[in-house]
Structures are given as structure tokens and as C-alpha cells.
């Protein structure tokens, strides 16, 4: 049996909380915003690199992302922390993909990469925040899926045993490979890139695959391959009024009491 590859799927997200939505298209305004690896995906990358360092069963680690040409930068970042290879899925036709179209596209790419024994996702993204791509990908690939993994207990060429974080405790789940997992922050402490890694990443040419490379039809990808569409994105209007009280504790109590009295919530001197 051949050694397995570990594929880590990552996404570029705006490296700021100060985001703006284009009112016409309801999508993120990306101009002038520095992009970073989705924070949860850093844990996925670290786990991929650690598995390769620890295990003889793994032939290669591959970082995969779908995005505009600039998303090459996060793949370079993935290479600098120790991933062996990277692939960028970029095509105008991929634009506007919802989670399903994204999962379909990633699945086609993972098939093309070949020999993927384990596919790792971050538990969700900072921008889309759905947490759906991982499970949908596994569905599409007919792979078992273990979500919210906090520890990989065992991995060989045939199976994985992982501990997953639940609301009231942990579950230990075993699954046959190939499998997909999503990881949470507890799983590891991501390293900083190394100088050699950065220099290697700088030199490496990252292959860019479009729809034809991965053999999908136009109606399977991007907006046309999406079941859902974002109709409107808005910030809910706050109905609450917030007042910050300052000063010593005694002064704050005094101010609070005055305000409550003014609002007829309390009575007294």
C-alpha cells in the first residue's frame, strides 16, 4: 500500500475586523485589505506538518486553497511553516461559490492531487463563518468526517483515531481512511515560519488550476454551481443604549443610582 498524502484546505480572509461589504454584490470589499490565512486553518496546517514530521506513513503534505490570484500569498505562508507542496485553484468561473460549490471544487482538486489519505480543515472561517465546507467536502468524496478534532490519537495508512471536542466532553472516534477532519484551537500551538522555509517558499512555483484542470463543468462551480446566494449582509441595528460610568467605585454607584432614579427604576434620596 502506498504512503498517504495529507491535504490541508485553507482560505484567505481579511486580516482585520474592519471589513466593508460592497452594497451592490453583497460581498467583501477586498481592495486595500491585507489577507491572512484564516486563523483556524493555521492549526490545520500545523497539524499537517506535525503528522509528517512524526509519521513515516505520510509521503507528502499539500496546502490547497481556492481564491483569486493573490491567494498565492497564503500558500507561500503555508510552505514557509513546512508544507511540502501547494496548489492554487483560481478561475473567474469559481467566483461567487457558496459552501457547496466550494466543496465540489476542492473535492475535484483533491482527486487530482491523488492518494489523499487525510484532508484537514479549520473548523470554520472568520469571514463566512459557516463551518460547512469540511463536512460537505467529505459528503461529496464519500469520506467519513470527524469535526472539531482536538487531538489525533493515532494515524496509520488505513485508519485514524481522533478525539473531538463536544460541548460537554470529548468523543474518541475511529474512522477508515481516506477521511476528512476539521480541527479546533486546542489541537496544537502553530509555529512561526522558519527562515529556510520562507526562502524555499519564495523560490517555489505554485501551480494554478482552473476549472478545466480539475475536470468540472461550468454549472458545477462558482455562482452557477451554488444552491445558496447571499441576498443581503447587514449589521443589525442596536436597540440598546450603552453608557459607560467612570470614576471611583463610589462615584460610579452614585452615577448609576442617579440614572436609575431618573428612569424611574428606583426611588429614594
Amino acid at each position, binding site marked *: 500500500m502506498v504512503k498517504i498524502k495529507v491535504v490541508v484546505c485553507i482560505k484567505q480572509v481579511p486580516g482585520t475586523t474592519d471589513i466593508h461589504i460592497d452594497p451592490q454584490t453583497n460581498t467583501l470589499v477586498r481592495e486595500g485589505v491585507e489577507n491572512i490565512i484564516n486563523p483556524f486553518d493555521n492549526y490545520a496546517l500545523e497539524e499537517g506538518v506535525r503528522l509528517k514530521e512524526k509519521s513515516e506513513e505520510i509521503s507528502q503534505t499539500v496546502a490547497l486553497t481556492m481564491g483569486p490570484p493573490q491567494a498565492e500569498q497564503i500558500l507561500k505562508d503555508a510552505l514557509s511553516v513546512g508544507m511540502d507542496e501547494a496548489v492554487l485553484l483560481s478561475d473567474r468561473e469559481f467566483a461567487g461559490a457558496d459552501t457547496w460549490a466550494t466543496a465540489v471544487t476542492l473535492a475535484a482538486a483533491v482527486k487530482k492531487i491523488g492518494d489523499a489519505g487525510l484532508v484537514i480543515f479549520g473548523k470554520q472561517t472568520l469571514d463566512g463563518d459557516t463551518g460547512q465546507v469540511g463536512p460537505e467536502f467529505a459528503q461529496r468524496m464519500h469520506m467519513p468526517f470527524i469535526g472539531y478534532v482536538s487531538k489525533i490519537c493515532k494515524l496509520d495508512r488505513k485508519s485514524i483515531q481522533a478525539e473531538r471536542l463536544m460541548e460537554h466532553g470529548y468523543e474518541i472516534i475511529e474512522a477508515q481512511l481516506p477521511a476528512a477532519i476539521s480541527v479546533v484551537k486546542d489541537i496544537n500551538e502553530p*509555529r*512561526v*515560519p*522558519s*527562515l*529556510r*522555509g*520562507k*526562502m524555499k517558499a519564495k523560490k517555489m512555483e505554485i501551480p494554478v488550476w482552473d476549472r478545466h484542470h480539475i475536470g468540472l463543468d461550468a454549472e458545477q462551480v462558482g455562482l452557477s454551481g451554488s444552491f445558496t446566494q447571499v441576498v443581503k449582509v447587514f449589521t443589525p441595528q442596536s436597540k440598546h443604549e450603552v453608557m459607560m460610568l467612570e470614576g471611583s467605585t463610589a462615584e460610579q454607584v452614585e452615577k448609576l443610582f442617579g440614572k436609575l432614579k431618573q428612569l424611574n427604576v428606583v426611588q429614594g434620596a
Partner: protein
Amino acid sequence: MNYFLTEEQRMIVDICKEITEKKIKPVRAELDQNQVFPSEIIQEIGNADLFRLFIPEEYEGMGTGIFEVCLATEELSRGDLSVATSYAASGLGFLPILISGNKQQKEKYLPLLASGQKLAAFGLTEPEAGSDAGAIQTKAVLEGDYYVLNGTKQWITNGGEADIYTIFAMTDPKKGSRGASAFIVKKGTEGFDFGKKEDKMGIRASATRELIFNNCKIPKENMIGREGMGFLVAMKTLDQSRPAVGSQGVGLAQGALEEALAYAKVRKQFSNTISSFQAIRHMLADMATQIEAARNLVYYAAKAIDSGQKDISRLSAMSKVFASDMAMQVTTDAVQIFGGYGYMKEYPAEKMMRDAKILQIYEGTNQIQRDVIALDLVKKGF
């Protein structure tokens, strides 16, 4: 300001910045308080290839110059001087091997130090030999294939944490400083023990310990250079390492200025932020100007060394003395800008001020540096 860095130099700074922001800043106060050696951070620094910088490629290093080491040290010092000191002290420990060691010694030790798996330490200072380094009393006596070491080294940075020590001892006490030799001593060698760990004013997370040699037998081949060359090896090492101490001052001061500036922009008195007051603004302006001046002197000294310039003692001493005096002043001013809060351990300013003081003392006090500068000046002019 970009300081005309190459892409590789930029990468070094970026990596160190990430270590400072993500790994050092969140824990520095705790490390200082509990005097805990930052092993995990040092490991991270090793994994990031930063110990490889100055070591030649044939010994698994990256073959950069001192300038690159200064860039890394500066950025780590912006985060925490204990971490930067532990990092730089390993460099100080392996410089004698790099400068004067033979091929076998380099092959044996440098790859281990390049990867960061092992740390090095530099053992020169003794209770009775501080500025007067020629007065060391540790003796090394040749007996067959071994030198037998006896004596005590004091205030050795990375003491106990390092695996490889470069030790200076007298092989011929009659000859004074010309009778000193340098040796490589491994941790765990019989007759080599550690004394008390010092409780310090600043850089409290760094390890500072006594090294005790009691009939410690060292194989003859562990001598660095020839017998009697020890003092020369030490001086050559210090000439090359001083700009890195200067860069510690620059980084530390930069960190203090950043904290002071951020505070001045939010702290309100008389209904205005204190950054709007001329008294504070001029302090900030002076701090920034002094840092920039020191940085340029340090960079210049490092580049002079890297260009192969021979007479570097004066310039190297200038970069150390100016940058460390500057750091003391800037960190003191940072505490002043924080006012009462600056005196409290809640804010990082007081720690930075405590840390700064060591820079005027270690690797040659600033008084000794001025002696070096004056001697060269009087002897050679310009």
C-alpha cells in the same frame, strides 16, 4: 523606514516580529516575575533557523553576517531582553569556536548550535576578574592528554541551560593575559558543576549562574586555538559581538517608545490626551531621535565588521556604549511618561527600565568601552 534591507533580511525581521508578538509579549511579565528560563521560546527561535544565521553553510548555518544577527537581536529585544540575551549569549559562546576553532571542533559543535538543539555560553568573568579580564584565576594544567581545570566562573549567561561552554583559563599564570587559553567544556563533564542561580534586578528570565571547576579533566583537543591565545580569542570575540549588545539597546528602547506612545495617545489629563502636551511630545521626539541615531550607528558598525574591516574595536565599542546609554535614558523616560502607572508592574515600562541597566554593564562596562574608544583615538587619531 526600510533601512535598505534585502528580501532575506526583511524575512529575518518578519519572523522575529512574529515571535515577539505571538510568543514573547504574552508571557514576558510572567517569565520576569517567576524568573523562568524561556525554553519554549528559545526552541521556537531555533526552529525558525535564527541560530543558524552567523554560522557558515558548511556547518548547517545560513552564513549571514553580524548585521543579520543584529536585526534578529533587535527585534527579539523589542519583545523581551531576557529572551534576546539568552539568544545572543549562545552566539557569544560559539563565536570563539567560529573565530579560532579548528575544523574538527567546528564540525563537531557548530551544527548542534546552528539548529538550536544545544545552547552555548561564554565563560570569562570571575569574582576577581570583571573589567580586569586578564586577572582570571581559573587554572588549566596539562596532564598527559588532558587539561585539568580548577576555579570558578561568575555571572555566566545561559549557565546551566547551555550544553557547550567556552571557558577561559590560565595555562601559564606567570605570563599574565598572555598566559590564558580557551577551552570547550561540555555540560556533564566530571568535575564541572553549577553554583547558585542569581536573583537579578533585570533580565530575570535569563539564566545567570556560577560555573565551578573542580579537577575537571578536559581532552587536549578541546583547546580553542593555541596555548596562550585565550585572551586574544576573547577580545576578537567581543569586538564582533558588541554591536549585538547595541542592537539589544535599540530594540529594547524601541519597545519602550512604542508602549509610551500608545499610552500617551489614550491617557487623558486636563480633558486632553497627554500626547497633545508639548512636554510629552518633546520627550517622545527625543526618544525616537535617539533610537534612530543608535540604530544607525549599530547597523554601520555591524556592516563594517561584515565588510571585513580590520580595526573595528573603536566603532564596535561606540555602538555598544551609545546604544546602551540611550536605552537606559529612553526606558527611564518611558516610565516617566506612564507616570505613576509606569512605576507599577501592571505595565511593561518598569521592567524595561530594570532590563536596560544590564546593557551598560555586561560585555564590557560602558566605562571600559570608553577606555577602548579613547585608547584607539589617542593612538591612531582618525
